[in-house]
């Protein structure tokens, strides 16, 4: 079910991403993190479309961070990586707004800023906060589908 949600989210994003950017979303090494988020979302009572949008926002943010983290070293190729990261970051805002999640933008704004501060200062261990912040947003906005006796596992990821 989580994998299906991931596929549906990919489809939604690819439908909405302008073709001229040539961006192909690929979960790649982020797949475990995205699947974890999918599991969290499935645990709450919400429309399937909301799950796709929330997971889509998370995916766009992760991929924008990755694009800027892994800039090619050759000056002739660096531009494309910069542009892809920029586009994904701004497209996240557009995507969230289009689907009625302006409150998500407000909720994640500080965390996203902190990601950039830490990156500029040479640290790369902030994604956990993004994950936690999104989980918190979901728990505030939606009710759990079932009472869980087990806590969702604490996610701590190494950055690739």
């Amino acid at each position, binding site marked *: 079910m989580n994998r299906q949600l991931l596929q549906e989210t990919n489809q939604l994003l690819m439908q909405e991403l*302008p073709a001229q*950017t040539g961006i192909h979303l690929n979960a790649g090494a982020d797949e475990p993190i995205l699947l974890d988020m999918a599991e969290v979302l499935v645990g709450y009572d919400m429309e399937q479309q909301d799950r796709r949008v929330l997971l889509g926002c998370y995916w766009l943010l992760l991929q924008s961070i990755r694009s800027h983290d892994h800039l090619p070293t050759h000056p*002739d190729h660096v531009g494309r990586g910069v*542009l892809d990261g*920029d586009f994904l970051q*701004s497209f996240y*805002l557009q995507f969230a*707004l289009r689907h009625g999640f302006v409150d998500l933008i407000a909720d994640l704004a500080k965390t996203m800023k902190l990601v*950039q501060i830490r990156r*500029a200062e040479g640290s790369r261990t902030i994604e956990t906060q993004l994950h936690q912040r999104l989980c918190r947003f979901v728990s505030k906005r939606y009710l759990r589908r079932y009472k869980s006796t087990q806590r969702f596992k604490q996610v701590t990821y190494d950055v690739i």
Partner: protein
Amino acid sequence: MLSSLSLADQLHVSLKRINRDLERIVTYDEDLTSRSVITRNVIELVRAGGKRLRPIMVIVGSRFGSDPENNNVYRLASVCEFIHAASLIHDDILDQADTRRGQPALHKKTDPKTAVFIGNYMMCRVVELLTEQKGNLEDYVKDLTAVTTTQLCLGEYQQMDQRYKFDVPLEQYWEKTRNKTALLMATALQLGAQAGLADDAVIELLHEFGDQLGMAFQVRDDVLDYMQSADTLGKPAGADLRNGQVTLPAMLAMEDPYIRKKLLQLGADSTVEQFDEAVGLIRDSGALGLALDQSQHFMNRAWSITEQLASYPAHRDLQTLWRYFEERTY
């Protein structure tokens, strides 16, 4: 008549306040230390100056409303400039520019990755500030963060994809020009007017005025790229063409089959002499004059909008802006 006063002085806009507000966006950020690489570099960037056209346009736009130049207007003015400054950091990396306003470009002072994250920080800080506001500021978030930055990127993609592809339809050139230049000017005036509580019809006209002015500005910029000497420009004439970018003068010149054939033979591996010849052909073709006519067409439309708004005293400010662009030679 040429004025010796700066644009801000002519329009009675306090650059001092704009610059102070710009610095405060960073210095008031409790998540940054004063020694942070971000704080230092963003403040340097702000202090390096600039024309501040976009904040000026926000303030002028607000003068068409019932609550002009309120605190929101000034906040939006500084935010607009902040977004512009952030986009310039990334532009310099994309263009591999070494300098900006006479100083080393940020990615040269630091490294490309740090510069990218500093630019990102600036964008994220703007989102944070705007989402802290209540009420209809949500609309400004939509206009500023969603439209302008996404469209700016699309303009860049279009430019990147069209590199050394000189056979592109005119519509693509207009779309790229609008995305890269005109939209931010239109949005600046629109946001100012909204924040100053102007009527919807007036907001629409101001948006169109900014759009037409931006289109005229960019076309003229593209013509100047061919007209002026290397000494004036600080780069060889026809630098756009040499970088693989086809702009209006080249597109119009290509209506001549001989020039078209010559230009379509150019590529990344062409020699300086081949580009020199192509630039010469474009210059002598009459295309520069035709492109300037097109620019004038946009300017005329912009002027007619100022006349439509003649019942507002602030229409004179639009005309001052118009003259500033009209007199601009570089």
